[in-house]
């Protein structure tokens, strides 16, 4: 009896010790710019949280790893819970910056500005992406599509691969006599929003739907997330769907060339970067919201692109978060960091836009 009683007490004690040790205290140490810098990163210390867009998750993770390896004492935590949730977290003061697939909308601006008072919230484009039309059709060597054909495929007006409309833009290519298995996103996403903006701008008669994060057209099959659509495409014959470039590259899926009027353009990082660099800035001051010209018609510009913004305060972040946020965003806006995007399947920000991005980050207090 006594031995079991002592055994019970010992077990209870061990369990309590284990439970208490699991509660780690998170110390929010004040971040100070340290004199040492690895490579060309101006390091800062401290701990910040960020959340938002899933589209830029791979890029941000890669950058965080690189930054934390170079700068000991810095901890950055990014949670990819969606653009909407990211903006909500930022407006509630829970994160230092939010990743969003679209610039702050009018309805969200007051909340974000309030969080940044006395400053204001700014959108800084940081990660570009290309939306590719990935397909899995045996024996099809290359595919070119024009906006009206894309619109009709994705609202179920064109249902077979050897439809005359597709054959007309693909002279000399043998198309199989098979039904098209079309995949779209079943969840709300910025990728759908940008794709539908492209279709509405370039083929409004064939795409009479409002743009939005939810898929509006009938027909086809929906899968959850970029990864869900990619898995469906790989598993289904004669399928086509719209996914981010990085996913198409990882799954080794063929992607269609898009002809916006100046010839067929392949879906590559470089071609997409041309479109992003040519986008006019509609924001004022250091708020760099871009308005992408989806109708862009140049032989080296891939038109279906999206830009992910980092939304932060130009002034008004708490002192312990501001230094590390500025340091991290300076790193991500640097040429070195932007060039790593290509290997990850993203699109770098280049040209005039990148210069303005660097200036905006430098202005963060």
């Amino acid at each position, binding site marked *: 009896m006594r031995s079991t009683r002592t055994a019970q007490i010992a077990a209870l004690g061990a369990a309590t010790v284990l439970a208490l040790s699991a509660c780690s205290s998170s110390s929010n140490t004040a971040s100070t710019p340290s004199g040492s810098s690895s490579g060309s990163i101006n390091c800062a210390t401290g701990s910040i949280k960020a959340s938002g867009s899933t589209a830029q998750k791979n890029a941000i993770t890669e950058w965080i790893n690189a930054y934390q390896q170079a700068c000991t004492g810095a901890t950055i935590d990014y949670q990819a819970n969606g653009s*909407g949730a990211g903006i909500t977290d930022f407006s509630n003061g829970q994160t230092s910056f939010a990743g969003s697939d679209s610039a702050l909308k009018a309805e969200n601006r007051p909340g974000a500005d309030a969080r940044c008072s006395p400053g204001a919230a700014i959108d800084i484009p940081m990660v570009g992406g290309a939306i590719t039309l990935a397909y899995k059709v045996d024996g099809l060597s290359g595919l070119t599509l024009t906006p009206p054909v894309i619109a009709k495929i994705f609202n179920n007006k064109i249902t077979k691969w050897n439809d005359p409309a597709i054959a007309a833009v693909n002279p000399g290519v043998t198309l199989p006599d098979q039904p098209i298995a079309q995949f779209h996103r079943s*969840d709300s996403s910025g990728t759908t929003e940008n794709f539908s903006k492209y279709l509405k701008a370039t083929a409004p008669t064939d795409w009479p739907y*409002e743009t939005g994060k*939810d*898929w509006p057209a009938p027909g086809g*099959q*929906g899968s*959850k997330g970029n990864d*869900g659509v990619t898995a469906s495409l790989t598993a289904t014959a004669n399928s086509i769907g719209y996914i981010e470039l990085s996913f198409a590259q990882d799954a080794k899926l063929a992607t269609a060339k898009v002809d916006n009027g100046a010839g067929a353009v392949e879906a590559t990082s470089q071609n997409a970067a041309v479109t992003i660099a040519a986008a006019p800035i509609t924001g004022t001051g250091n708020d760099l919201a871009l308005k992408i010209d989806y109708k862009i018609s140049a032989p080296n510009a891939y038109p279906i692109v999206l830009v992910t913004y980092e939304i932060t305060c130009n002034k008004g972040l708490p002192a312990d978060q501001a230094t590390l946020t500025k340091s991290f965003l300076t790193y991500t806006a640097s040429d070195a960091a932007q060039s790593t995007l290509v290997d990850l399947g993203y699109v770098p920000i280049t040209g005039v836009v990148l210069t303005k991005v660097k200036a905006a980050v430098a202005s963060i207090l």
Partner: protein
Amino acid sequence: MTATDTLVHDELGAAPASRKARWGDPIFKAVTLGAGIFTVTIMFAIGLFLLIRALPALANNSGNFLTSSTWLPDQSPPVFGIAALLFGTLVTASLALLMAVPVGVAVALYASHYATPRLGKVLAFLVDLLAAVPSIIFGLWGLAVLMPNMGGLLKWLNDHLGFIPIFQNTTGIYTKSVLIAAVVLAIMILPTVSSVSREVLVQAPDLQIEAALAVGATKWESMRMVVLPFGRPGIISAAMLGLGRALGETIAVAIILSALFEVNWHISEPGGNTFAANIALKWNEAGTNGLGALIASGLVLFLITLAVNLVARMVINRRRVKEGTA
């Protein structure tokens, strides 16, 4: 009985330790009463929260909430309706119940009365183990294994029984449908239904079973006359537990269904959406009105579950009164 009662009472009344022994009673009563009140309060608080957060979005709605199928709460003007969600939820849940309850009760009956005691224990253990598998695993299995391989069966149903609307398939695509989601849900709730039913059926009175056998009933007849009627309230409770799990199943359904907002009786065609899956898919990117609309749909799910459980309770109580068992 009364003799021992008075004896105990006398002893309690006589001993001076009775005062000390009695303070436990009021405390225990207070604690249990508190727990009961707490539980009911939580339920009301949840219902109230859902109602308060849903009202602004419901007021803004330009479409009919109950009959419209579109889901565009973040556009102006906002239009959203739950017709397609209600259809999808009810069809998947009822199909799942229809498939799981007979099999579950059969497994329970076998484990409690047909198998040898040792085999019955092993079977019960294995089924309980299956009940502990997280539902996302079932979803992944459904997506990766069941869906690609079920096409053949569904095509056969379309070719031979296509005159029945629910088996007809006009698109030629047999994946990502309400029917597949229902099968996955059925497999998910089977262990729950089976283990709870087994717990109930194992308590069936042996004397009555033996009496039935003695007057010449076959084994199946004795089950039918004694065990199943005895276990009916318990089986209904088990089915309600399973139904609750099926109605609320979120991620597994979200990754399988194609999330089209339409009421489509051809359930082997891609499409369909349920309340829980819709909330999971739209929550992250929803705007303020969108969140309110999702919470409104959650309120409807809450009310459906309450209503179903109320009906089940009434059925069980009526049965109890009829049979005279307390």
